């Protein structure tokens, strides 16, 4: 080395000033540039790890198998139906596409919720454990740039999984019964849900000391959103007893129960009630689900299912409510509360099918984003340097 000391300048002449750090350059461009640099660093690492490709391959294979099995199941059930029913009973909306789409969508969302924490929840503390986080912090990068860079990298990695599953959703579309709007909106919402989970994961990973701990906590947070929201809605509804004014339904024909989400593929009666309401209004005991619907809204399945635009079912004769649409309907009837769902509430016949007028997903997505933003903000606080407080059991470097 000593023989090259004469030739290689250690000093780069006059100190190289930071570009855009002090005036001149656009501050926003400089900020985004820093984020992009972190993303580039992260993506280079991720794209070179073989495990990522293996996961991607497994993901593709599993969804392909699920799609194929769904398609087989559909064909088998159609065979059975054709042998027992006249062709006229089959609606054009009952294409195989809708079923494939729903199953694949539910599956992709499930897998996305499983994969996204793994891709994001060790972003910060994994680097901390490897001693590379402080290397970033010592540079001109701000905590926000590091955090956003990590988040974007995790999200991009998760979006790659979504991209590999997109062909199957498109396949479902071509099998009939769906419009491109369905696919676009559902992919968009899946992407947003991935962002939410990645944000939660990155935030927790900045807060927790150990990668294993933060990954487990992120999985628990996702489980709380998926399962916990249902449980708390169920338990909370029991506490939300109330009353509703209603009179008695008098059937014109058959009285139908409210829409059941799992009556997939079974033709139902027209959406307009087949009864009239008569008699004096009396107070009935009812569960005020409308007060608890926000808990249900936190559920990623509800958010995705509710955001998809469904065709207007009123007056279309026979139709089938699929699983995903059923989730949306269930959530909306919970939001509408007994005033809209109780038979003959306020003496008015209530339609079984709720129109798309009161969507629940903006509320749910909003709550999810608030949670994510809170965790990201706390994570940002813990990334600030010079650090005043360290997570217990961690060294900064």
């Amino acid at each position, binding site marked *: 080395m000593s023989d090259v000391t004469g030739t290689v300048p250690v000093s780069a002449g006059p100190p190289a000033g930071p570009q855009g750090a002090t005036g001149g350059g656009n501050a926003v461009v400089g900020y985004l540039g820093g984020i992009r640099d972190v993303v580039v660093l992260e993506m280079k690492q991720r794209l070179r790890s073989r495990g990522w490709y293996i996961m991607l391959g497994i993901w593709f294979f599993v969804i392909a198998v699920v799609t194929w099995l769904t398609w087989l199941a559909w064909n088998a059930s159609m065979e059975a139906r054709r042998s027992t029913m006249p062709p006229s009973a089959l609606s054009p909306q009952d294409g195989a596409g809708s079923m494939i789409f729903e199953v694949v969508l539910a599956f992709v969302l499930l897998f996305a919720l499983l994969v996204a924490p793994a891709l994001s929840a060790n972003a910060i503390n994994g680097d901390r454990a490897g001693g590379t986080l402080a290397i970033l912090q010592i540079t001109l990068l701000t905590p926000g740039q590091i955090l956003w860079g990590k988040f974007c990298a995790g999200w991009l990695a998760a979006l790659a999984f979504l991209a590999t599953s997109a062909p199957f959703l498109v396949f479902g579309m071509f099998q009939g019964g769906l419009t491109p709007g369905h696919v676009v909106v559902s992919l968009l919402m899946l992407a947003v849900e991935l962002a939410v989970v990645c944000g939660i994961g990155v935030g927790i990973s900045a807060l927790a000391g150990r990668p294993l701990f933060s990954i487990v906590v992120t999985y628990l947070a996702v489980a709380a959103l998926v399962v916990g929201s249902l449980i708390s809605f169920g338990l909370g509804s029991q506490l939300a007893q109330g009353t509703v004014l209603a009179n008695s339904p008098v059937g014109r024909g058959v009285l139908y129960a409210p829409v059941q989400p799992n009556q997939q593929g079974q033709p139902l009666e027209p959406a307009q009630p087949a009864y009239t309401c008569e008699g004096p209004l009396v107070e009935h005991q009812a569960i005020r689900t409308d007060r608890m619907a926000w808990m249900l809204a936190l559920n990623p399945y509800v958010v995705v299912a509710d955001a998809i635009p469904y065709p207007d079912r009123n007056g279309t004769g026979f139709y089938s409510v699929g699983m995903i649409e059923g989730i949306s309907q269930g959530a909306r009837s919970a939001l509408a509360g007994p005033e809209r769902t109780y038979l003959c509430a306020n003496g008015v016949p209530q339609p079984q099918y709720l129109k798309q007028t009161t969507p629940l997903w903006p509320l749910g997505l909003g709550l999810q984003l608030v949670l994510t933003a809170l965790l990201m903000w706390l994570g940002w606080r813990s990334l600030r340097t010079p650090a005043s407080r360290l997570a217990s059991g961690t060294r900064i*470097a």
Partner: protein
Amino acid sequence: MSIAESSSVPGSGALGVSAEGVSRRFGTVHAVEHIDFHAPAGKVTALIGPNGAGKTTLLLMLASLLRPDSGTIRINGLDPVHDSAAARLRIGWMPDTLGVWESLTAREILVQMARFYRLPKDGIAHRVAGLLELVRLDTLADQPARVLSRGQQQRLSLARSLIHDPSVLLLDEPASGLDPGSRVELRNLLRRLAGEGKAVVVSSHVLSELDEIADGAVFVSQGRTVKQQTLEEAALQGRRYAITALDNEALTAKLSELGLEYRVEAGRRPSVTLLLTHDDGAAALLGELVRSGIGVVSFAPAAGALEETYMNLDTEKR
């Protein structure tokens, strides 16, 4: 304040690193308690202390990563707590953990670092190539960092800390894991960087190394500054010499006769050590021993000057 100080002319006492009364604790552990530290520009300053003395914590505070609970830090007159971006442009920090992005190549790591420091884009490739050559990683530049040996990663880490041409270098155990040849190179490089006017702070506990590198030393123990001295001062305080002879008994007899205080060391070969205040005395004693016919086999400093101070501190502590 920061503008006035950062624009102050070099050559004033503000250059270099200084810490005054810096304290930092983690929970109930006082990692650093009221440390005073000064590393002038153009000098190599050693930070010496036993394991857990607070060296790394102090360096983290100097590197603007940790906020001191109390006390002030100045990096070329800049306060890293309030003016961290400006201070960071001047700080090159090499951590004691390697912290290498393993799947990136050495070249990519340096390029990324240059971008994080927002260096002008057109100069990055040239600068990175120069640094890779400087730390002799140019032949391995396009290998993933994970295949580099520990010493090579250490050199990469050094190059990384130099990427933005900082005026203050904070090196935490830079020599650990280096082979003897690389140590010599590191020594030459650090001397040269100091010669260019940079303030170089080296923490280590390989004291014989520091004797050759450092101009001054700050001794810390249990989170406190115990002693701050230049190497000249360290040399003046006297050092311990080890003497071995063919006939050890004759040697000890002669030393007793001369009225010198000595210690018989337990070692593979029986030897005697004694404290001599200056080099003239050592030369005189050697002449005396040889003249009196004692077969002196070796006569050499038992430890480096800094090690001497260090060991003395250790005994004072007890």
